[in-house]
């Protein structure tokens, strides 16, 4: 089995009106990765995801999925989409049926699974996103965050190997973001490859093991998690901020509030731990 799930080579995409959305884009997504596609609004993140799933046809270049060139026949695309799931940014674009359970069943039904299997998968998928008790509630009566979770359940019920999420935290409150990250962590632990598009550098910093930075349709930088701190100037050049956790960590380090050699925190909670650990040391020393 190929170690690379997606590979684009000099990928280019033009909108029907001639504007360039993606330019000469070459990147790889490794199996089991947690990839953040970082970029400001209009940088081409959504267009790239739609291209990866064969929903848009590239104007130039090549896409390889699971080691093979991405086929355009109906059968090829169906095979690809049964292995790769995409959660759209706006849940109202994705929910096709007003019945939550029905909507979640849509993907598994398209896979041609046995009805009993579909039923089990719908129940499991809804439970895994904490929406089991909402199966009989109409989609229009759900909150934005709940709709989002139903959308994710609709994809999980298809048991994809790769999960693509387009701006999954947009419009979610802090608690819902936490829950979403919990769900993603479980899926990743089960071996799923996850690609998430976002302009939220804090989210990428906390979550990703690799970042691909897009700017005006071009791939302008890539880095592994361990290289994040050296890549900050590059982030800044492309309309992305510094991760706040890293900023505070560095300031605290300079001010001597954190002992040198403390592992670099990625999340707010880890940062607080690092600060708390240091303050205990300070008290003990005095």
């Amino acid at each position, binding site marked *: 089995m190929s170690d690379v799930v997606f590979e684009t080579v000099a990928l280019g995409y033009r909108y029907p009106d001639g504007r360039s959305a993606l330019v000469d884009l070459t990147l790889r997504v490794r199996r089991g990765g947690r990839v953040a596609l970082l970029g400001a609004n209009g940088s081409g993140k959504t267009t790239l995801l739609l291209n990866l799933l064969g929903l848009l046809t590239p104007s130039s270049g090549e896409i390889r999925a699971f080691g093979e060139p991405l086929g355009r026949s109906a059968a090829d695309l169906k095979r690809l989409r049964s292995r790769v*799931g995409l959660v759209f940014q*706006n849940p109202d674009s994705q929910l*096709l*049926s007003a019945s939550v359970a*029905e909507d979640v069943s849509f993907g598994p039904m*398209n896979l041609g699974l046995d009805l009993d299997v579909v*039923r089990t998968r719908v129940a499991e998928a809804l439970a895994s996103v904490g929406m089991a008790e909402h199966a009989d509630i*109409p989609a229009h009566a759900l909150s934005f965050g709940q709709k989002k979770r139903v959308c994710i359940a609709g994809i999980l019920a298809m048991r994809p190997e790769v999960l693509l999420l387009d701006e999954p935290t947009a419009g979610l409150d802090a608690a819902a973001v936490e829950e979403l990250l919990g769900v993603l962590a479980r899926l990743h632990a089960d071996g799923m490859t996850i690609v998430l598009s976002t302009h939220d550098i804090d989210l990428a910093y906390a979550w990703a093991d690799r970042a691909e930075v897009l700017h005006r349709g071009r791939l302008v930088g890539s880095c592994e998690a361990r290289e994040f701190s050296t890549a900050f100037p590059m982030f800044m050049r492309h309309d992305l901020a510094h991760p706040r956790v890293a900023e505070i960590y560095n300031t605290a380090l300079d001010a001597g509030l954190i002992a040198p050699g403390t592992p670099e925190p990625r999340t707010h909670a880890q940062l607080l731990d690092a600060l708390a650990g240091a303050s205990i040391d300070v008290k003990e020393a005095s």
Partner: protein
Amino acid sequence: MMLTERYAYGNRWRAVSVDAKAAFAALGMVAAFVAHPPVGSFAVAAALGTVTVLGAGVPARSYAKVATIPWAFLMVSAVTLAVSVRLGGGPLPVSLVVEPQQGAIAVAAVSRSLAALSATLFLALTTPMTDVISLARRLHVPTTLVEMMTICYRSLFVLSDAVNDMRQAQTARLGYSSWRNRIRSMGTAVALLAIESWRRSIVMHQASLARAGGDELRFLEPQRDGVPGQLAIASSFGVALVVAATLVPGILV
């Protein structure tokens, strides 16, 4: 949420199978057509209304509120059926007259429609649309129709949210502050909505393809327990209603 929606999901008979409720509504419709108008038809309308209010537990006030608009339509139709325009023959060159025969036809048509409306309201106020659509699917209603129902019903809420947002945004910028502004804002909103629905239809199609969707929208049917029993009970009440409807005379003497 719309009033019909609220009761469709929140009535006492929410858990009763759609088959049973649809059978009762269909037999109610039959009763509406076999009843002798106007008294028999009014009796059927009253019976169906009573079942909806007392049986399913839809508050009478809400029932009246939901029914007001179709009732108003019926009244307008009754007037147009009953009244005819006569040229000459009176003191004025043009006069409005009610011919006795036409009046009787109007009353019969309206009373019958009222009974049929009550049967429809029974179904609408006790059964969520998603259940009705899944029944249509099982009854082999042409796929295109069922899919249009599914998408239209879903889009109804998505687009009414969009309209609501647009209206609020326009109102906040005084879009409805004068007659002139009102017309202009409404025009803009209609144009925007057309573009918005087109844009959303493209994304919705992409989302369907992304989930390995093909030419047909396929969903899992809800599991149905205890359906034969409920269907038998509902059908016997429905048949009783049909029989009773034939026994009530059209005119009380």
